[in-house]
């Protein structure tokens, strides 16, 4: 968990804004989610890994100028507004950056078998047989 540990509070704050249901995860489920994200980050070149961490830190500190608080200390409505602004930023680099973080969060959350079961996803190698 070395890389994500350095930005855990902002990462979790983003995660619960992107997927509100993540707020209800217990410690074990957070560990699963973060292990997926960590593993995914580890596959990227060192330069990209640094960029991801820098973006997470930037997301934490940028709201200071506007709201006088870090992202992780904002309420849900302000977090949502801030991320929405980032998602639609005039600069492609920022939009791309947010899209990448959003993708990591969605992967961490929805690639867990527990999340797939929770939304009712039941694909099975036995196909129709499994439903009869």
């Amino acid at each position: 968990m070395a890389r994500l540990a350095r930005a855990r509070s902002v990462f979790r704050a983003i995660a619960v804004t992107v997927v509100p249901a993540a707020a209800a995860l217990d410690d074990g489920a957070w560990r699963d989610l973060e292990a997926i994200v960590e593993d995914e980050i580890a596959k990227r070149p060192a330069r990209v890994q640094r960029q991801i961490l820098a973006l997470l830190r930037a997301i934490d500190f940028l709201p200071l100028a506007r709201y006088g608080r870090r992202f992780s200390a904002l309420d849900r409505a302000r977090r949502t507004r801030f991320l929405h602004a980032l998602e639609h930023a005039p600069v492609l680099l920022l939009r791309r950056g947010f899209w990448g973080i959003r993708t990591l969060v969605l992967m961490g959350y929805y690639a867990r078998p527990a999340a797939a079961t929770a939304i009712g996803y039941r694909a099975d190698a036995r196909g129709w047989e499994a439903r009869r």
Partner: protein
Amino acid sequence: MSARRYDVVVVGSGAGGGTVAQALATLVREGVRVLVLEQGPRFSAAEFTGREREMAGALYHDSGGFLTADGTMTLAFAHAYGGSTLVYTGTSLPAPERVIRRWAVPGLDHGDLARRCARYLGENNAHLLSPAELNDNNRLFAAGARAAGYVAEQFPVNVRGCKGSSLCNLGCPNDAKQGTNRVQLPAAERSGVEVVTRAEVLRIEADRSLTVRVSEAAPGAKGHPSEWVPGVHQVIARMVIVAAGAIGSPALLLRSSLPLPRALGRGFTCHPALILVAAHPRPITNDVGHPKSYFVDRAADERFVLETCMYFPFTTAKAITGFGDSHAALMRDFTNLQMILLLACDRAVADNRVAVDAAGRPVVHYRFTEETIGGLVAGTRASARIFFGAGAERVLAPFADPPVLDRSASGDIDSRITRRGWLPGTITVSAAHLMGGCAMGRDASDSVTDAWGVVHGLPWLRVADASLFPDGLEINPYVTIMALADRVAEGARRDLAALAD
């Protein structure tokens, strides 16, 4: 290091390479040595668990997350014995006459391609599924299209003993899909063609030698070990047939110090796609049954094609625009979701191209033209009409703000879904029909190969995969790729004797 000698070396074992391997097998009986080098491993159906992340990591380049240079589109392609046919859905359509005529490649005749397509459609058991095999997701598409005034056609699919697990894009756990891994490659091997997996060709030299890196299987990783000892090998060939796919082939040739035409890498197209979803008021069968049975072809008039599709939880979540409550609400309704894959029919432009970075890795430069964006907007509108026509209550429309329309907006589709909503980097665009980069054409001034896949100026070097397409195909491409590869193999059989050692 001593070099191994072969008469013909085929690079890649996907739709193109697998076809060439089988079509050259008759030569083996005459003493000709044919080798296929494939970067990916061999897999067994038992290894296909259907677990999204695990399978994407094992089968796809960059786990399916390979991005274009500006990061606005994801390109999906596989590395495996069988190439991307291992992960394709198996919809099987012949080359459209209108498109082949528009390509205007001297010496390439639609009638010839059509005959070859028909042969491979038969060989791969392409057929229409019976009504009893169709799930609600497919039936609703056909009904919605009818209600909205579109013509929905049924796709032939190339399956034998399909159980309807809906996992085609993660590898078929039932060996039902008739990809080159099931049909052409085993036939080639039975006839004596040698196939070596985990063998990546790094470069091809002008003396017809190939530098090949054979990789070891990582501990615990899926896939069989290579047939050769891990390490770097030299291979010398009389003829080299490159079939490494629309990214792999241009990238390999660009890494090689060969006198190649300037068009190399250029004219890349990919049918940029959006996964669109809509929530019905009740659960439907969507994650059981073959995922893809119908399509609406508006390529000629509106530059898009719509297909039924069904994706896995993370892929679906990534495709749904936005985040927070509205996103979560659609995901919570997963059992009620109908899905449509919208493909824009993009046209070749020189600047959309495959290049390589300093380390020789592929980089794809792609800019969305106004026509392509127009196809995506028109296709999103048509999908919304089909979804509402099928009875959906909420429809994902990435070009609208907010991006989810409820039924009350079904009369305002044209005003709500507009070009103004296109902002690259906010909408998840992905593509799996990768085409072009080694285009066929007249001569080295306009293309890379002739109509038989022979690289201009290098009779010993040929291309036999989707990179041959001089422009987009506007339908699912694998059968056309097989037909073209079959021609390349015929040319190779004809010309091999004339090539000196």
